[in-house]
């Protein structure tokens, strides 16, 4: 028990928390943009899987993890464009199509991996992105290591929070964007191009979700496997709900899940008596409890999930 109170342990734990929260944060913000434009995208898990593969492969071939991240973004956008077209233009049900993406994207990812590396390969490793400590700030005792000694993607993720906040609350474009998810007909009547904004939201969502996936295989683990995403896409979804569709709330939610994830891993190492599966359950159970406790009082953008058609009689 004393091990828990050890400063090094706590520092290590918090450092891990920041790292493990990162993919959830990025993907949750991706979903935030999408839902603010009225599109519920539950295919995040699938986009992440594809992003993680594309990122891994690009990094492996070029040796450059940054290119991997970029590739992940592009890959994510491509996949999400399928979702966007079918839900925005064809009006397919968003939930259903999100599920379709969850089945479709990982299948392609798996396929490409097997084609490139052969069917029975495993444990192909990658060069991971190295941490870029921020000068001066990373020298701060205790906090310096936790907050300022990470790969740039982590910084990017956390910077995205205030950027998103400012976008939605202080800019004209952000206001118009939000209107699309709240009352698209009114927005249209005011000259806002609803369809264009929805596609834009899908591009942002796809890119960020792809980056979130690519992060996993270029900054976090050095191998790719079919289950690398492990449901993080869905945890990101609950982070959006838990965070009440606000960037700050989403950040808190992501940190919470990152914390439970980091904790559970350490507990596995420490108490070798407890079967690891029970510990691995903690993040999921935690998600459930948090959701159950908070419930859903605010249901999110009013026109969320509804298809939008420009009508002529």
């Amino acid at each position, binding site marked *: 028990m004393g091990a828990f109170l050890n400063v090094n342990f706590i520092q290590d734990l918090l450092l891990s928390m920041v790292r493990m929260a990162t993919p959830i944060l990025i993907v949750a913000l991706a979903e935030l943009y999408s839902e603010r434009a009225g599109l519920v995208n539950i295919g995040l898990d699938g986009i992440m899987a594809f992003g993680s593969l594309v990122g891994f492969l690009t990094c492996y071939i070029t040796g450059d993890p940054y290119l991997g991240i970029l590739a992940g973004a592009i890959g994510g956008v491509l996949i999400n464009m399928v979702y966007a077209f079918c839900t925005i233009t064809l009006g397919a049900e968003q939930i259903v199509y999100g599920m379709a993406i969850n089945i479709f994207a990982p299948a392609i990812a798996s396929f490409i991996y097997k084609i490139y590396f052969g069917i029975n390969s495993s444990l192909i490793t990658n060069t991971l992105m190295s941490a870029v400590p921020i000068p001066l700030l990373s020298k701060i005792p205790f906090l310096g290591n936790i907050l300022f000694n990470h790969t740039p993607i982590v910084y990017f993720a956390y910077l995205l929070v205030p950027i998103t906040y400012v976008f939605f609350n*202080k800019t004209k474009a952000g206001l118009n964007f939000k*209107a699309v998810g709240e*009352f698209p007909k*009114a927005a249209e*009547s005011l000259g806002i191009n609803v369809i264009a904004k929805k596609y834009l939201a899908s591009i942002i969502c796809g890119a960020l979700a792809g980056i979130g996936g690519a992060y996993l295989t270029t900054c976090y683990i050095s191998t790719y496997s079919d289950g690398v995403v492990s449901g993080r896409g869905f945890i990101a979804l609950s982070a959006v709900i838990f965070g009440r569709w606000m960037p700050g709330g989403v950040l808190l939610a992501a940190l919470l899940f990152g914390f439970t994830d980091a904790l559970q891993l350490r507990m596995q190492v420490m108490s070798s008596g407890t079967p690891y599966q029970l510990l691995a359950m903690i993040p999921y159970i935690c998600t459930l409890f948090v959701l159950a406790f908070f419930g859903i009082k605010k249901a999110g953008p009013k026109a969320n999930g509804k298809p939008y058609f420009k009508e002529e009689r």
Partner: protein
Amino acid sequence: MKEILRMEDITKKFGEVYANQDINLTIMEGEVHTLLGENGAGKSTLMNILIGLYQPSKGNIYLKGEKVKIDSPSKAVKLGIGMVHQHFMLVEAMTVFENIILGTSKDKSIFIKKDAIKKGIIDLANKYGLDIEIDKEITEISVGAQQRVEILKALYRGAEVLILDEPTAALTELEVEGLFQIIRKLTAEKKSVIFISHKMREVLEISDQITILRAGKTVTTLKKDDTEASELANLMIGKELVTSEYEKVIETKENIICLEHVDFNAKSKHSGISDITISVGKGEILGIAGVDGNGQSQLAQMVTGVISPDSGTVYLNSKKITKFSPHRFIEASVSHIPEDRNKMGLIGNMSVKENLALKSLETPALSMGKGLFLKKKAITNNAETMKEKYDIRCSSVEQETRNLSGGNQQKIILAREMEENPELLVAVHPTRGLDIGATKYVHDKMIDSRDKGCGVLLISADFDEILKLSDRIAVMFEGKLVGIYSGNNPPIKEISLAMSGKIE
């Protein structure tokens, strides 16, 4: 006065149907011009053309003497045409300020220069006497205030011609006066107002000129001073106004339902009821008059079991109700023609016959073993019989109800609710969106039910309907019951005042 807008020989066809045919409308600068006509006369279509949502099949529009083509809503706004819709286009989760500036960009910055813009808006509001609370969310302000926001939105975008579509539908008498003051200020500043309404009293008060539309065509344009109510009414309908042909019931012996001091969400003025004591007798029609949004929806939901009272008691057939559920009330022979037929009354994706059978699936007539085996043939036959009896126009009883017209959808609900010979019929806006023929049909059937001993609770925003059908008239205002009057030679002036909250 200068001419500011002219619509010349405007024609709009939808398929085979002429929504507008050779319409001529000329608006002068600084005047209030009323567009008068019944539901379906073509007012909405004409206005939709003016704001760029539709393109005319034929005809031209001239703004300040120059021919213009209004091919999109943004173009209309640029040309100085602004519209306040009947159903407001306001984003509820946003503030008044945000709603006003939405979609606009008066300066180059990407950030919203809040303080500067706010000041500009407040100055504009003061100029026209528009009282607004600029930082409140839309959900927090009254309907009248929301309307002022909509007007301000149009003015902020430089509207010279303001179209007000049925602006008084959801306002109290007091708020209507406030609106008229604003309109007078607007015209004093040389703005023109196109006032769309079918309410005679208001039209005669505020208009400078009146154009009457009927069946898609212009009937004539008159100056307000040259005409009066009954002439306008005749021109609007095209025939003599029919006064009520139904006999009124003076007294009833028993009550079917009684409410005593019932509260629900009493604090809310517009979605709650407070200390309501009222009863409906067997064999009478009790009409609830009052502008929509004064608690009528909640009253309807209370007497059909959808919601339960916070305090107070409800007696059905002299028995106190302890458990409120639609099922309980349906079992007690309460039928409901709901406010929103598509959301509350019908399952759009199911067929006509399925919707007709919705409440009687476990009766021995339509199933064996209380629902264990549905008799498909019996269900179909039942539907065919209903179709005949209630004149439901559909290609077959297998057709999905969402493909039927509003009138026929309403007939399905009528058939289903009235065939059971209910003891209490709760009818909310039963003829909303129906044409004259369908309306008369519904009215006849309701009188029929009443004559058979059914108690009818009629809730309608159509004052004429209430006057025509009710044996007694009760008025609701801000959730409270403010008066009960006889439906036989009803004191119209008193009732109108009560509806706007002014009680003697």
